[in-house]
């Protein structure tokens, strides 16, 4: 194991985290809703016509965020390196997995942990540990 200190951005990541928390808090105090992204998508897919509007609006906010960002700051250049086959596999696993677990990084990892929910603590430990192992297998063992 070696620390990657060149790309280490603790302060920017902390500030970004604060903004994520702020976004969650806005939805909480004004709409009375939790900003768990997988829950929002899952509810939209299974029951589009019940409370669909605020969910669509939230997701639209996510989609346009890079556009608003580039208006105030330098535009972001980033490229997804994963092959199409692996992207399809990954998307299916993330969709079915978070729907089954009733939460993802935002729901369990942030909102649940902020409330010290036992379910969320177990979920977060599980997906982070499995993700570390999955990365290890894919990128170090199989080199896909």
């Amino acid at each position, binding site marked *: 194991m070696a620390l990657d200190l060149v790309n280490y951005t603790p302060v920017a*990541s902390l500030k970004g985290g604060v903004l994520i928390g702020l976004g969650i808090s806005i939805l909480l105090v004004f709409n*009375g809703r*939790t900003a768990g992204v997988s829950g929002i998508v899952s509810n939209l897919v299974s029951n589009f016509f019940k409370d669909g*509007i605020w969910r669509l609006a939230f997701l639209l906010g996510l989609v346009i965020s890079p556009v608003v960002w580039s208006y105030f700051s330098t535009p972001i250049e980033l490229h997804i390196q994963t092959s199409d086959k692996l992207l399809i596999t990954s998307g299916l696993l993330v*969709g079915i997995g978070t729907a089954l*677990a009733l939460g993802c990084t935002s729901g369990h990892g*942030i909102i649940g942990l902020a409330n010290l929910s036992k379910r969320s603590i177990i979920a977060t430990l599980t997906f982070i540990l499995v993700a570390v192992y999955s*990365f290890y297998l894919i990128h170090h063992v199989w080199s896909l």
Partner: protein
Amino acid sequence: MSKKFVFSFFSLLSGLVFGIGLIYSGLADPNKVLAFLDVTGSWDPSLASVMVGAIGVTIVGFAFATSSKKTLLNTTQHFRNQNYFTKKKSVDVRLVVGSALFGLGWGIAGICPGPAFVLLTLDPNKAFIFFFSLISGFVIYAIINKFDWRK
């Protein structure tokens, strides 16, 4: 202005601030996420501080929200019925299996549901492939979930 419009406005604002947070923190960049998961290789621990910042502010958000019985728009606080808040739902197989499947997928591409939406305007061609597959996953789950397996 109609209440629905005001609701949607704050919802959009929430998603926007959330999304900008994802970009600023590095969580929207799959390469950054994968570097965080690369514990045995060249490990970039940055994303740990995203969690610290986000959880810290969310705790304050909940403290403020729960200090009154209604939202600031004088409506029902739906979050009070959610599992994260009630903590009544127990740990079950679905939670662990689901989280494990999610972790498996997250370790492959470094994209979780929030960034999947942000990436649509950053790297559209690749992001749409992931996005389409992600939505398919939710649809497959919704179809399977329509059956009552206990019968």
